[in-house]
């Protein structure tokens, strides 16, 4: 077997971005949660919010650190492995990435130091403002990176001259057809993911009988937020699906593993798509439901993969299963929120042992849904980097050999398999210690007085 630099470069990009995306999935939500807690503490002065905030700031710091170092890797991937894509699309996407750096990264980095280390060094309002600005920074970053991603899915506002993209309308580039839906769907996904992490941690603390007051507070507020956000997310996902049907029919056909274009289409719950034979095996389907869900009309036409030449089709099996995993995880989350609401109405939310255990085990659900959703949308875009215009095969760096990419891929695998598990272990350690009630008394502005110890033997 020969080593193909194209296949290996795709694997490498998938590897580094998959690990990277799970960090924002929790830091974007946590940044907003911390800003909320700091805001309540700033206005009410109640100590409990201060303690909860400090607890989550510690977890945030570990995750944010991993998000930064895995994020620095990303822009360089465009140059090292996808140089032809960079050369062709730079006129359009580089300002988006640069504005992400200028508006988001610098804001986060500038105020993160104050948020983490500066509580005793600046006035209280300045610390609160830093928390808000870090949260705003994470959202701006999401905005710009999803503009870039969405433009690759539904390109607009450009003209193509000699294989190079040139901008014709920045409004059409930024607010391209899929961007508003993708942005809302992704931000909500990140909030929901964080919400299930916070609920899981709260359930763990309740289960272990630690920091009970703080844990009840975390669980209660987060459950109310999720009661709104999870149904909202399913609604937004449906809108996003309609948008895909309109602008990326080949992708929708691949997601549904739907070969023949037809009205009154069934919905395949399970199938093994066979790309070569252009059909599915072992199909379990519900009549009419496909048209109803995808087009909101029983007589609606669902596009089929055979409408498109074989070389323009995504490999159906991956988006087909990834999409079902995402939807499945979403429905489980909806069920959990409903159960939580029911327990709350019966006044048993904080005392139900089995519900606490369930919440602890459902912490990965959000991450699974995020990764599956991302896989659906990115593999569904294939064989294109810029949908319908530039092929993935024409985007890769021409000078690379398979061996080059194999070496770098192994390097990224080894390093990430050390770093991310170590980080997870450290987060678990912070959680196990519970909410610290030590000398974190509220401090006014001024120079620091006493040392602060996070864990026994943990340094200065």
């Amino acid at each position, binding site marked *: 077997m020969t080593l193909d630099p194209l296949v290996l470069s795709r694997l490498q990009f998938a590897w580094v971005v998959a690990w990277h995306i799970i960090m924002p999935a929790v830091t974007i939500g946590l940044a907003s949660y911390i800003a909320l807690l700091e805001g309540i503490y700033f206005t009410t002065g109640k100590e409990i919010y201060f303690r909860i905030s400090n607890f989550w700031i510690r977890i945030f710091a570990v995750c944010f650190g991993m998000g930064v170092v*895995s994020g620095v890797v990303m822009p360089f991937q465009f140059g090292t492995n996808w*140089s032809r894509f960079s050369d062709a699309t730079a006129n359009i996407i580089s300002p988006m990435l640069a504005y992400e750096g200028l508006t988001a990264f610098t804001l986060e980095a500038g105020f993160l130091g104050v948020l983490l280390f500066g509580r005793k060094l600046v006035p209280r309002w300045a610390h609160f403002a830093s928390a808000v600005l870090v949260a705003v920074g994470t959202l701006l970053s999401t905005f710009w990176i999803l503009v870039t991603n969405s433009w690759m899915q539904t390109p607009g506002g450009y003209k193509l001259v000699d294989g190079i993209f040139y901008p014709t309308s920045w409004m059409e580039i930024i607010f391209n057809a899929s961007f508003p839906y993708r942005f809302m769907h992704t931000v909500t996904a990140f909030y929901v993911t964080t919400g299930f992490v916070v609920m899981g941690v709260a359930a763990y603390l309740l289960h272990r009988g630690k920091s009970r007051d703080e844990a009840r507070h975390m669980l209660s507020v987060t459950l109310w937020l999720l009661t709104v956000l999870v149904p909202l997310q399913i609604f937004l996902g449906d809108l996003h699906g309609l948008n895909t049907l309109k602008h990326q029919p080949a992708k929708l056909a691949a997601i549904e593993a739907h070969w023949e274009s037809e009205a009154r289409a069934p919905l395949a719950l399970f199938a093994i798509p066979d790309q070569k034979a252009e059909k599915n095996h072992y199909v379990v389907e519900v009549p009419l439901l496909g048209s109803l869900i995808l087009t909101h009309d029983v007589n609606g036409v669902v596009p089929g993969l055979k409408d498109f030449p074989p070389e323009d089709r995504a490999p159906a099996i991956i988006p087909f299963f990834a999409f079902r995993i995402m939807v499945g995880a979403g429905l489980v989350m909806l069920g959990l929120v409903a159960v939580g609401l029911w327990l709350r109405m019966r006044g048993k939310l904080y005392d139900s042992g089995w519900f606490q255990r369930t919440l602890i085990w459902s912490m990965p659900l959000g991450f699974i849904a995020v990764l599956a959703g991302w896989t659906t949308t990115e593999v569904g875009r294939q064989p294109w980097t810029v949908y319908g215009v530039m092929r993935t095969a024409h985007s890769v760096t*021409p*000078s690379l050999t398979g061996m080059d990419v194999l070496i770098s891929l192994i390097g990224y695998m080894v390093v990430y398999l050390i770093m991310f598990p170590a*980080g997870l272990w450290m987060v678990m350690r912070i959680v196990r210690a519970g909410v610290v009630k030590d000398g974190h008394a509220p401090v006014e502005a001024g120079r620091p007085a006493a040392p602060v110890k996070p864990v026994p033997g943990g340094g200065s």
Partner: protein
Amino acid sequence: MIFDFVPLWTLILGLAVFFYVLLDGFDLGVGILYNFAPNTPARNLLMNSIAPIWDGNETWLVLGGIGLLAAFPLAFAIILPAIYFPILVMLLALVFRGVAFEFRFRDAEHRTFWDHAFGYGSALATFAQGVVLGAFIQGFEVEGRHFTGGSFDCITPFSLFVGVALLFGYSLLGAGWLILKTEGNLQTQARNQARICFLGTLAAVGIVSIWTPLVDGGIAQRWFSWPNIAFLSPVPVLTALFGILEWRAIADRKSELGPFIYAVLLFCLSYLGIAISLFPMIVPHHYDLWQAASSPDTQIFLGVGTLFLLPVILVYTGWSYWVFRGKVRADTGYH
């Protein structure tokens, strides 16, 4: 075209890269010197002297990389594949080094491992950046719009030497920072280290300055032909002057800011020297700044925002440095 934005973008990108070299330069330098710290309390102090600001410093690496993509995409698309492995080594080293800030404090049982991750990671990232610089000065094999050489071509005696040179250079900046931020024994040790790094940097800059014109006739022509030699003579003269001032500041126990400032000025002049050698080429021997530039629409759209945002960024970055001003002490306890 109404207005030529290329000179403006050259200036912005030049400044962004220079900010990166200075800012991450000194905190990578502190990371290199970390390998020589005598004990755990000293390592705690060294790390705390940069913990609140390293993240902001590293942001300039992303801004520099994206800036090159935005302003001169053709250069980005040719150069990055050519330095595939130095970039890989730099990124992986930065991963280890970056997470060590948090992990070292949280994972006391494996502190030695994270100490090494931080110290060696900083040194390796610096070395890789030096190799990138060396490879860039040497130039690349190009056909049309692509790099056509092999991924290991950038590893040459010259680029490896520049890698070593940068180890001394960043360490000098780092030692200057430590003289500013520490006191007592640690400061004395930083002064001794600064002296060694200064001599190393001086020797390295001297050798590179002789080696470069020997490898590249065009660069020799630029510096030594008349009347260039007269216009450009202030560069070596000022370098010598700041070198003497740096040496004296390191020795002068009352001077706490001097060693850092003169080291910065020396970096400034070396940077200027490289720019003079290569201008106006952005892909040496192949494409100049105008040929590699992005579309005017792109440069205008991003330029407007950048001119507005850069001063704001500099102000609040300055503020966060101000918050953490003064000597770093064991009882400051950021962690």
